[in-house]
């Protein structure tokens, strides 16, 4: 057998793996990305239904920054990947809101709007909110040495009104927490900045625009990518990984491995037993509905609505197939200057992986349909005009996520244990992506970049 060998192998062609691959290929490493699926993107991939192009996940790109701002995560990653700002073709959100039973807080990419909404609805909390924002702005969430601190505890030192507290946590938890009903304060800061201080935008053309740029850049730099190439085992000698074995049995030799498969998933590739506490619990169903008109033609100005029925927001794995009491309603092409032909909305509900996994086929389909009906009901509360305008529906469940990305439990935000420095107990095997602790599309790319820099380009210095 001819020797198939690389300086570095990357497991997974999601956002983090592609970004890491670009950095390594840029500096003359012979690098190969191995992806089990037939296309790139991972948790944020794309597909077609009846001739319509759909994104798997993308609600919005967080961390919006205007052109010229180099300091934030978006500016940093564009620079590191040598992608000119304009090629992302970012369109900003119109407005979003956190909508609880008796209270609604609007926010845009201008923090002042949120501040005035807090002032209007919670007059006595305005100063506290400003102090919280200041604390967040001054916090270094990127320090690899930060230890777990409960975000709920920190925030309750600032915000006294329980309802405001719940409302602040709602978008932050559901857009990025691997923990139930709380999260690590560093992660909270990352998410708070990315949602409330920086904000939402959408690349024109959706996630394909970003993926095409990444893939093109990677190939142009001489990187190799292999699809339908699932890694089954990481082969170790002593404390060192010597290569990977694919499902086909093929062996690939390598000096270093970056794995974006996830913490427990990577442990499994080493043939190890999983610690059940390391497996995340947060999974979701998502209903996707295509409309014959764009939301702006209905006069709708919302981009994303974080909906919750009660006054307490329960972010945890439900004991039912899915949780109807809250949802994210996303009009994922209702951004400023959008150029889409159709409208689209997405409704995301928390869901229970185990329960979905146990359903047999016919039943599974039936339950998916109920999720869709509930999604339509939920959107009707806010935007009744969409009824009867549907062109196409689709629903995915935690089982779908598991099938296409191999994440245990179909978890979107990975393990509650984050390995911030990316190190494992194998000398030359490192984690990148969700379980390194940066998440979302922008976070995952930044994670790939920083792990490639630290462990390969700088040799772990």
């Amino acid at each position, binding site marked *: 057998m001819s020797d198939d060998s690389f300086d570095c192998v990357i497991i997974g062609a999601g956002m983090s793996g592609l970004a890491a691959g670009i950095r390594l290929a840029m500096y003359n490493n012979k690098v190969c990305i191995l992806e089990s699926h037939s296309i790139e993107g991972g948790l944020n991939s794309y597909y077609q239904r009846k001739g319509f192009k759909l994104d798997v996940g993308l609600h919005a790109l967080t961390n919006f920054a205007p052109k010229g701002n180099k*300091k934030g995560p978006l500016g*940093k990653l564009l620079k590191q990947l*040598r992608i000119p700002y304009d090629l992302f073709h970012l369109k900003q959100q119109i407005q979003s809101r956190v909508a609880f039973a008796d209270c609604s807080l609007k926010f845009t990419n201008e923090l002042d709007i949120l501040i005035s909404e807090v002032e209007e609805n919670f007059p006595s909390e305005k100063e506290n909110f400003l102090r919280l924002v200041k604390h967040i702005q001054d916090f270094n969430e990127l320090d690899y040495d930060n230890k777990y601190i409960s975000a709920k505890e920190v925030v309750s030192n600032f915000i006294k009104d329980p309802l405001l507290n719940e409302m602040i946590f709602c978008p932050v938890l559901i857009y990025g927490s691997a923990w139930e009903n709380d999260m690590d304060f560093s992660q909270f800061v990352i998410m708070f900045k990315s949602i409330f201080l920086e904000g939402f935008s959408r690349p024109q053309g959706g996630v394909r625009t970003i993926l095409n740029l990444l893939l093109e850049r990677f190939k142009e730099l001489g990187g190799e990518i292999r699809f339908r190439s699932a890694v089954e085992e990481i082969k170790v000698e002593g404390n060192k990984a010597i290569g990977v074995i694919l499902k086909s049995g093929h062996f690939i030799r390598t000096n270093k491995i970056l794995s974006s498969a996830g913490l427990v998933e990577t442990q499994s590739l080493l043939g190890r037993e999983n610690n059940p506490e390391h497996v995340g619990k947060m999974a979701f169903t998502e209903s996707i509905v295509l409309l014959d008109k764009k939301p702006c033609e209905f006069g709708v100005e919302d981009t994303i609505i974080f909906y919750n029925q009660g006054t307490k927001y329960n972010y945890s794995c439900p004991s039912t197939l899915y949780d109807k009491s809250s949802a994210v309603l996303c009009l994922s092409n209702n951004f400023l200057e959008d150029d889409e032909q159709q409208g689209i909305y997405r409704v995301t509900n928390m869901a229970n992986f185990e329960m979905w996994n146990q359903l047999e086929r016919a039943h599974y389909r039936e339950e998916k349909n109920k999720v869709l009906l509930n999604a339509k009901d939920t959107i009707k509360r806010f935007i009744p005009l969409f009824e009867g305008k549907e062109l196409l529906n689709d629903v995915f469940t935690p089982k779908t996520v598991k099938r296409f990305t191999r994440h245990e439990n179909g978890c979107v935000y990975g393990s509650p244990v984050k390995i911030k420095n990316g190190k494992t107990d194998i000398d030359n095997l490192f984690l990148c992506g969700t379980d390194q602790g940066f998440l979302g599309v922008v976070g995952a790319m930044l994670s790939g970049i920083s792990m490639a820099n630290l462990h390969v380009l700088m040799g772990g210095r």
Partner: protein
Amino acid sequence: MQTSEVREKIADIISDIALDEDLAGLDDSQSLRDQLDLDSMDFLDIVMELKKRHKIEVPQEDYPQLATMNSCVEYLTPKFMQ
């Protein structure tokens, strides 16, 4: 090699890294970090590009020598001549 050529080679590298930045108004005696919003990731890239394009190694303890354009030229000119 002339110092002006060295300056040009460094400017080439910086303009590839700071993609959307205009280098025309750069003050050679002032900090690159402040003028161009460069961070430690960018300095890593300057070092990596020097190695890739010109086979020049900059040990980590010498990174402070790259603070301004003038100090870059002064520090790197002998290395370009080797």
